[in-house]
Structures are given as structure tokens and as C-alpha cells.
């Protein structure tokens, strides 16, 4: 009955949706932001720990959401670890193009591995009302990167 949905709900998404990685509060986080999708009530909090050189040493999240938004946040935390803030920003932009269009022709090679890892989320572009589920975590990442230390920024996918 739902076989044609295996494109959207690939095994990796169901897996990250059920058992999100880095699903915890980072008590000593340097950057924190909250994301909110009023459409479906999804909420998440994203924590970033920065290395002395400013790159992202650790990333974690908490919150509630659908399989797609949870998997997206989970994959995000795995993908941005070790990245410079600029690279994380760039990745976020590329991911949003991917989620909205299903492809990212101008993504270039710089973050090719990371984009490949995020590829399973690209199926969402066929479901206009679900794109925001996939991008929520990434909006929140941008907000966290822009936040001042100690401040908690709010992001929304609407």
C-alpha cells in the first residue's frame, strides 16, 4: 500500500528517526538555538560546542518531531561535527536547495561527501508540506551560528 513511499522514508531516515544520534543536551554548549515549526508543532533545540579555532567541536539536539525532521537533525549533528562555521553555513544553504528541489546542481565538490550523506532526505522535495520538516534543523543551525554566546536564538521554518 505504501511501497512508493520508500523513496521518502528510506531505511536510513526511519533509522535516524527512531534512534536519533547526538540526541542530548550539551550542558557546556557555546551556541544554542531553538527551532519551531508551527505547522506541525515540531520543536527542537540545537547545541554547538566550538573548538578554540572556532570550528564545530560537537553538536547535539533535543526536541520532538516527525521522522523526517528528527532524521534531518540527527544527520545534521553528524555532518557538521569538525566543520568550520563557514563550511557549516555553506552546507546548510546547499541542503536547503536539495530539500526544495531534489538536487543541487551548483553544489560543487567541496562538500560532496556531506551532501551524499544527506541525499536520502532529498525525496522530501516531492512533498511540499514536508519540506519544512527537513529544513527545520538547518534553519536552527544558522540561527545558532549567528547567536551570540549565552543568547538563545529562535528559528522558524515558516
Amino acid at each position, binding site marked *: 500500500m*505504501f511501497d512508493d513511499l520508500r523513496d521518502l522514508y528510506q531505511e536510513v531516515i526511519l533509522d535516524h528517526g527512531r534512534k536519533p544520534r547526538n540526541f542530548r543536551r550539551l550542558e557546556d554548549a557555546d551556541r544554542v538555538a531553538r527551532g519551531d515549526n508551527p505547522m*506541525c*508543532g515540531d520543536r527542537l533545540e540545537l547545541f554547538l560546542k566550538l573548538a578554540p579555532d572556532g570550528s564545530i567541536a560537537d553538536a547535539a539536539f533535543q526536541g520532538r518531531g516527525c521522522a523526517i525532521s528528527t532524521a534531518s537533525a540527527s544527520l545534521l549533528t553528524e555532518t557538521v561535527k569538525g566543520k568550520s562555521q563557514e563550511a557549516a553555513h555553506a552546507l546548510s544553504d546547499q541542503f536547503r536547495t536539495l530539500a526544495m528541489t531534489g538536487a543541487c546542481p551548483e553544489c560543487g565538490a567541496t562538500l560532496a561527501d556531506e551532501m551524499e550523506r544527506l541525499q536520502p532526505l532529498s525525496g522530501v522535495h516531492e512533498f511540499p508540506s514536508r519540506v519544512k520538516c527537513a529544513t527545520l534543523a538547518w534553519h536552527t543551525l544558522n540561527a545558532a551560528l549567528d547567536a551570540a554566546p549565552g543568547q538563545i536564538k529562535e528559528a522558524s521554518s515558516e
Partner: protein
Amino acid sequence: MVGGGGVNDATLASSFDIERIRRDFPILAQTVRGKPLVFLDSGASAQKPRAVIDAMVRCMEERYANVHRGAYFLSEAATEAYEAARGAVARFLNAADPREIVFTTNSTAAINLVAHSWGRGVMQPGQAVLISELEHHANIVPWQLLRDDKGIALRVARVTDSGEIDLDDVAAKLADGKVGLVAMAHMSNVLGTVAPVERIIRMAQAAGAKVLLDGSQAAVHRRVDMQALGADFYVFTGHKLYGPTGIGVLWARLEHQERMPPFLGGGDMISMVTMERSEWAPPPAKFEAGTPPIIEAVGLHAAIDYVSAIGMPAIEAHERQLVDHAMRRLTDIDGLTLLGRAQDRGGVFAFALDNAHPHDLATLLDRAGIAVRAGRHCAEPLHSRFGVEGGTVRASFGLYTTAQEVDFLAEALTKAREFFA
């Protein structure tokens, strides 16, 4: 499959030819993603029968002009049609007088009208408005705005675990006599609960409070009778009653309308304008500023004629059977939690599956051609009350909904649970 109502229901429902009715709704013949459309989101907005569509087309092709101030044929015809719609609404609600009917944009605008005009113009600081935990945001936020603007307290009556208004709590919150207005949903858009409005009205009146009923859901599912009910304000919205968007109804007693200051200012709501001051037209024109929803009033009139020809009692009986059937089928599904089990309820079911987020579930069902809503259905506090902040999936029925569609939903839910297992 005969419903709880017994023989009478069965008789009524047997005169209810569901196949003929479905043919009246062009959109129901659609396939969605290659599957026949199973539309279970009528609680958000209902589909439109051919009679409504045709009436609007005829209005635009043959009888259109602005109303009220034209001394020529088309304007007279349009005015007559607009006022005939008012008369039809009055009869539908069994109002004592057509002037009790104010046309608005939707239920939301109708409640805001009362919150602004009655709330700010007649109520006094120190008084309170009593709502309940199960309200739609349209019956929460206007009162919050009033509270923050005018120092009128907002009280919230509890809802029991079975999803019914806690009448003891209502009594307790009315006890000090400070409640000036009780504003409650006649039927919940999430739980399906039909409130015991006769009792609530008696309790409110004994405590000196006026009563506004949000009939957005109830008026679609049952016959409502203003003269029997004895409330002070009643609202409903056209698009849920098989009519067009862009039109809603406020029923308000004339004596209240007389006391209420105008809300929106503009043409048609005045009797005299100078730059220094203006005088207001008599009710209901006083509350209908600007060009009204003329084409929409004609559409709503046709919708009311349509449901009246079928008969609200027959619609209610059909729905009662569906509700009983859905109750059996949904409670059979492993891992499914239903919100609310009110004794008196209509065809709205909100539920959660243990292993699927409502949004994922809605996407799955959509692929099977089943249209349901996921989220908090504009009733966030109610979802918090039941500890389902992440939302629910809601299936809601219209007069065209069949038992087969309910079966189809139940099967899809079972398969969805396997999908996410």
C-alpha cells in the same frame, strides 16, 4: 451497522441515499495520486455540492451588482438575493428575526466582532470571560487580546479525561458572579464532543453571564435552534457547511446588537456621516461595513437549501451510524490512542499511533488517497491538556462520508503501523 439511535435513526438514514449525495459533489469523483479520493478533512473545510457552485455562477452571470444602494434592476435583484440569504440563515437557525443575522467573513471574524464590540464596548474591567480547555484558537486568542487590552480576566473551564466539559469546574468558575460571558464550542473540532449547551446556558444565566456558542462544527452536524437554545450569541462559518469561503455568520439578539458599538467603520453601516460625527445604521447593517460577501451569501443560501432538503435529522442520523462504526473500527487498531470518548459526539476523531508521528502518518495516508489533517488543529492548549504536544491525526466526516471510507482508513492505519514498525 445500525447506530445507537435505534429505529428512528435507521429509518432516517435509509432515506439517505449516499450514492446520490456523493454525485452532487463534483470533487469526490477525483482520483488523487491515482487512488480514489477519500476525503476525511471536512472538519477543516467541507467540499461544495454542484448546487452551491451553480448558484454562485448564476449570481455572477445573471444577477450581479453591488447591493443596497442601487435603484436599478440588477442591484435590486442582488440586494434581494443577499437579504434572502439572511432569511435562509435565520430559518436554518430558527432565529426569531432575520435582523439577528450578521454576515461576517468566517467564524473567527464573528467571534472577534463580539470580543471587540461586546467585550470592549459593553463588558467592564473586572469582569471575566469563561472559555474551556477544548476551544479552537478562534475562541481563545480574541479573548486573550481582550484580556490584555481591557483588563478582563480569562478563565478556563477544565475538560475531563473523557474529553467532556467539566461542569463542576464551570460551576466553580461561575460562582463569584464575575463572569460576564461564557464562550464555548458547541462541538469540539478535535474531540468531537458535543457540549451540554442547554445546561451550560442555564448555569451561565443563573450566574448573570451571557453565552456565546462557537457552532462552527455543531451547526454542520445537527439542527440548532436559537429560540429553543436561549444563548446570546452563536457563530458558524460558511465553508464548513458546504458553502463558500469568505462568509460566516454571527447570530446575536437584537437587544445586544443595539447595545454594542460598531466594530468596523465604513459604508453601509452608517445612517449619517459628517466629519465631526457619524450615526450608525440599525442592526444588523451596523456591523456590516463595506461591500458584503454577496456572491458568497448566495452560495451559502444554496448550501443551506441543500442540507435542508436532505434534512439535518437525516444528516445527524447518518453521522451517528458512521461515528459508531468508526469508534468500533478505530479502537480495534493496536497502538492507536483516541483523544476523548465523550458520550455525545460528532464525526471528528483525533488519534495518535504509538510508532508514527502524526505528520508522517498523514503523508502515508495521503499516498493512499486519504486526506486527513495532522497537527494540533488550532487547539494547542487541548493537545497540551492531553499530553500530545506533538499533535494528532484527525479524521472528520461530512454528509458524503461512507462506512467504506472509514474501513479504508482503518486498514491503512494498520498498514501504516507496520510500515513504521
